[in-house]
């Protein structure tokens, strides 16, 4: 029987949505492995957050409270988690794969000498062992991996599980106490908005998104022409922005904008998960890519395999030819 913990990250407005997905992953893993699942909520005062999980089917909701956990720092979080894990010996600890957990869970794994499986998208229990599936090579391939030792730490990728699949029940809240010094290893100076955000792509009906495959700033003409023909806004994947071809506020994805237009038209974009989370909700997804196995085709409704510099002018022409009928 495996004892599973889900560390439920919180935000100012409640439990992090990805933590809810991870709780569902925990419930499914418990069902598949014949184990139990508990949630762990940490902070300086988290009773309201813990209460949000009262109607979930969980062994318990454990709270881990300390003044040093008020603001996130890896020093305090790793020390608290390591102490709680050592004292309670869960077999598997799941985290949502957020920017915050990626910042400190590897360090927790190092402190515990524990295996870490990042970015889990699914799992299977085979002969009592969990086989974890995760993307490799920018999502072009996936790998099935097995982890050794105990505990096993794993982080669950966004969108792999759905919070609406949760099993309802009741969960008792109880407090966990730890007896260690918690020390911040960084001083928090403040937050700032990322420059830009003047272009609000989330309001657009149609978005043409340019990827690295376009090949250069000087080759963006076809993308703008297509956007014009479709009366669409122009967005982009991260490398296009990083290379300075388009401004930062055009970025679509986990560190950019989240869009759900009627039509998303991706050009020369491979479809890495960090991009997909920003556009998966689009009504109709079209992709043009020369690589037939590009992961973007996995979420697309329509795709053309070919060189975008040949395909896009042809699409523009076809749009013009059939206009108005």
């Amino acid at each position: 029987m495996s004892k599973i913990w889900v560390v439920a990250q919180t935000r100012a407005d409640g439990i992090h949505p990805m933590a809810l997905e991870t709780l569902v992953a925990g419930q499914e893993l418990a069902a598949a492995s014949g184990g139990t699942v508990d949630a762990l909520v940490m902070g300086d005062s988290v009773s309201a957050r813990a209460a949000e999980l009262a109607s979930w089917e969980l062994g318990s909701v454990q709270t881990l409270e300390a003044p040093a956990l008020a603001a996130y720092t890896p020093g305090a979080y790793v020390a608290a988690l390591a102490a709680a894990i050592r004292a309670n010996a869960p077999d598997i600890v799941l985290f949502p794969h957020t920017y915050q957990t990626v910042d400190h869970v590897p360090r927790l794994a190092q402190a515990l000498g524990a295996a870490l499986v990042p970015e889990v998208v699914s799992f299977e229990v085979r002969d009592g062992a969990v086989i974890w599936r995760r993307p490799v090579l920018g999502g072009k391939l996936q790998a099935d991996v097995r982890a050794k030792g105990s505990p096993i730490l794993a982080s669950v990728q966004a969108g792999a599980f759905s919070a609406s699949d949760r099993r309802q029940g009741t969960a008792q809240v109880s407090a966990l106490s730890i007896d260690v010094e918690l020390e911040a290893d960084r001083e928090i100076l403040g937050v700032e908005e990322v420059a830009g955000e003047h272009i609000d792509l989330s309001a657009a009906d149609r978005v043409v998104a340019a990827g690295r495959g376009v090949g250069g700033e000087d080759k963006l003409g076809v993308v703008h022409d297509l956007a014009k023909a479709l009366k669409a806004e122009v967005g982009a994947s991260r490398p296009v922005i990083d290379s300075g071809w388009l401004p930062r506020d055009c970025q679509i994805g986990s560190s950019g904008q989240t869009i759900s237009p009627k039509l998303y038209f991706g050009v020369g974009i491979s479809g890495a998960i960090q991009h997909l989370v920003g556009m998966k909700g689009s009504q109709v997804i079209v992709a043009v890519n020369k690589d037939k196995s590009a992961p973007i085709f996995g979420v697309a409704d329509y795709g053309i395999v070919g060189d975008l510099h040949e395909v896009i002018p042809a699409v523009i022409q076809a749009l013009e030819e059939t206009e108005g009928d």
Partner: protein
Amino acid sequence: MKIAVCMKQVPDTEASLRVRKDSLWIDEEELTFVINESDGYALEEALTIAEKTGGEVVVFSLGGERVREALRKALALGAARAVHLADPAFEGGDALATGRALAAAIQAQQFDLVLTGSQSGDAGFSSTGSVIAGFLGWPHAWLVMGLEVEDGKKAAKVTREMESGVNEIVRLALPAVIEVQAGINSPRYASLKGIMQAKRKEIAAVTPADLGLGAEEVGAAASLLETLAVFFPESGKGAEIFEGDPADCARQLVEKLRKEARVL
């Protein structure tokens, strides 16, 4: 300041990939390898800081013979020296095994700062820099989009990317490990002079024994993760794909978008 940069060589994102016969990894034989994207940005950041504050940049890479090419490129860009964790025993590790080896190599010299990328384009653990920091006992920050060493070189102001268009600014005491995100700067190109000079710069090859590590503490032997298989993902609901003559494909697509999807 003396700055260490850890770099990994990964398949070019343009490369077409094939699964190896044993299914345990991709066939690397005819692949083009490049410096991992965010590691290139880390190197640029290190070179800029070293130019401003004085000091030198030393690059570290773990892997087979081919990674010497990446190290040579870093030397051409301005790094002073390179350390190659060259023994086959180093290979096939998870982030813990790789981080242990790199931390030991870094510890053998005195550094004020260690820079790495945020995520590799192959295994994609997003962990190695933090693990190195854990072994060194230094503070770290992941996904860094701004780095400013403060006067006196005792601390650094770091801009950390967060979800939803917000950055957090934090101060870390030095020495520290900073995991750089792609886009933090504009990497330079190598000059002819740089390429010539690189030929005379040192690439020191080290083994686990040189670092005081047993062969069982590094690489596949120490790895807590075992890959059972890699494969191309099943493509979800599956797109309707057009292939062949661009004009034909375009016409079919536009027809579908008008009549079936009704989004035009």
